[in-house]
């Protein structure tokens, strides 16, 4: 059972996000961390490999400036290796361009299963994994909240707006997992030490046999017209509860004729 997990390395979410004033892309300078929503895919991959009794988890990532800081975290928890696609022509890539890169990298690995988060924390387009599936010619199941494999078939509980569906799907396939689907493990000291020597293969767009016009700003075929502050919603009255704040809430609801 070989699992490829798509991992996005993003700016630290504790820092306020910003757009580059020149090209309106998200600023991705400084140390990148693994998107927390991908930690669930990594953990799910590790559990499925353990349950199968063999195989390994590989990471696939696309990042500027050869960043690997976010990948080391996942390697420390047990992933075996990583492919990192890093190339100046990738700047400005949209979801489809990113999917083309990830699909080409995944094809080199030939996994049984691809896992990804439902959407990234910084860009949240939420289309990349299923675009990867279509590019590979594979089925996909999005919004998985429970995943197991029996008799070579994926058995998935897929979230819906009103509840969930039980879905079966043959391998190979792409599955997107919701956050909270599993409890990601913490890396051990041994794991952190071992991660430093695990292989990270760095590739360019040319290495993947992709035409540069398919990715980056050229491939995105969209442009930002304007960026402005949204109409702000003003803060209102603040009361500190001294045991009677519920009365103010009651009064407010009466004013609004809710009561």
């Amino acid at each position, binding site marked *: 059972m070989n699992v490829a997990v798509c991992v996005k390395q993003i700016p630290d979410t504790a820092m306020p996000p910003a757009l580059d004033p020149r090209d309106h892309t998200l600023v991705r300078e400084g140390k990148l961390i693994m998107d927390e929503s991908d930690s669930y895919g990594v953990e799910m991959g590790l559990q499925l490999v353990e349950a199968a009794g063999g195989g390994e988890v590989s990471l696939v990532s696309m990042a500027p400036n050869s960043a690997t800081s976010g990948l080391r975290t996942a390697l420390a928890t047990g992933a075996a290796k990583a492919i990192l696609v890093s190339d100046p022509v990738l700047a400005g890539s949209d979801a489809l361009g990113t999917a083309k890169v990830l699909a080409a990298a995944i094809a080199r690995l030939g996994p049984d299963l691809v896992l990804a988060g439902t959407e990234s924390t910084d860009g*949240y387009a939420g289309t990349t994994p299923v675009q990867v599936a*279509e590019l590979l010619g*594979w*089925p996909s199941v999005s919004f998985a909240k429970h995943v197991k494999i029996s008799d070579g078939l994926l058995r998935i509980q897929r979230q819906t707006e009103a*509840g969930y569906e039980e879905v079966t799907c043959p391998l190979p396939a792409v599955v997107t997992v919701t956050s909270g689907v599993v409890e990601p493990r913490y890396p051990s000291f041994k794991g952190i030490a071992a991660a430093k020597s695990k292989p990270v293969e760095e590739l360019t767009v040319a290495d993947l046999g992709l035409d540069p016009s398919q990715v980056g700003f050229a491939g995105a075929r969209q442009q*930002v017209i304007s960026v402005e502050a949204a109409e702000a919603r003003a803060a209102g009255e*603040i*009361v500190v509860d001294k045991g009677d704040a519920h009365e103010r809430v009651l009064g407010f609801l009466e004013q609004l004729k809710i009561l």
Partner: protein
Amino acid sequence: MDKTWVLAEQRGGVPAGIVLELLTAARGFGGVVEVVTWGPSSESTATVLGRYGAAKVYDVGDIGEALPGPKVAAAIASQVSGGNRPDAVLIGATHDGRDIAARLSVRLDLPVLTNVVGITASGGRLTSDHSIFGGSTLLRAEFTDAIPGLFVVQPKSFVAEPAEPAGQRSVEIVAIEVPETGATNAARIVARHEEERSGPKLDEAAVVVAGGRGLGSPGNFALITELAQLLKGAPGASRAIVDAGWVPYALQIGQTGKTVKPMVYIACGISGAAQHMVGMKAAQKIIAINKDREAPIFTIADLGVVGDATKVVPKLIEAIKARR
């Protein structure tokens, strides 16, 4: 703008709410509005679609237990490559809608604009609005040389209104072919489960009472349910407690959950993460109860109570009961 297509997801024999919102928006673009639907109820769906301005309904047909993504995307792509090409395709940001958009994007080799919260047509071009960074920033974008433009639109971005003068009562339904989808269509739905609910639907309720981590423990969510019931509203939740397994996903409000626009939103023990605020900041009035004076939710609350929700809410419940 000659022609716009809207994807019509069905819910229990009628179009999903977002479909009517998208039809209303598409009518404003000036050209013909047509719809692509799939599922067992194309007749009853088409009647409603007509009232909202659809001139024609392309019917993919009943797809049985398949997930909609592969077949619906393949059917649309085959129409487009066969010459029946709209200028834009509007797709609701539902789970199935995002799957269809992703596969359609690859089939047509066209980009997708996602998280759209508004669209303006002018001079034959469409410009889309995107609310980013928790709603603090508005970004406008457009396609360059990508037709049809694929837009994935957030629910509640437009207010649904029937066509004026009255839209057509009977609409032409045209069956369209689904080309071979091969292995992509191998997933099967073997069972469907709906969460039980009493009271109004979360995304339609006039009052929403939502709980978060500040409730301290899963058992305390009963306070949220009780207060919602007393106010004839619906209970909701932050992603944090859905992820933690306290309540089902159907209650989640925010980026990946429901978008709500109630008259009153009462946030109890919710700090106000960016992904939560985009789902509720359009509420007419917001009441927030949170221990942390610095919580972001207080920057948008009309009434902010700095206090422990597990203490304030029980007293509020008692006070409301005492009024009766």
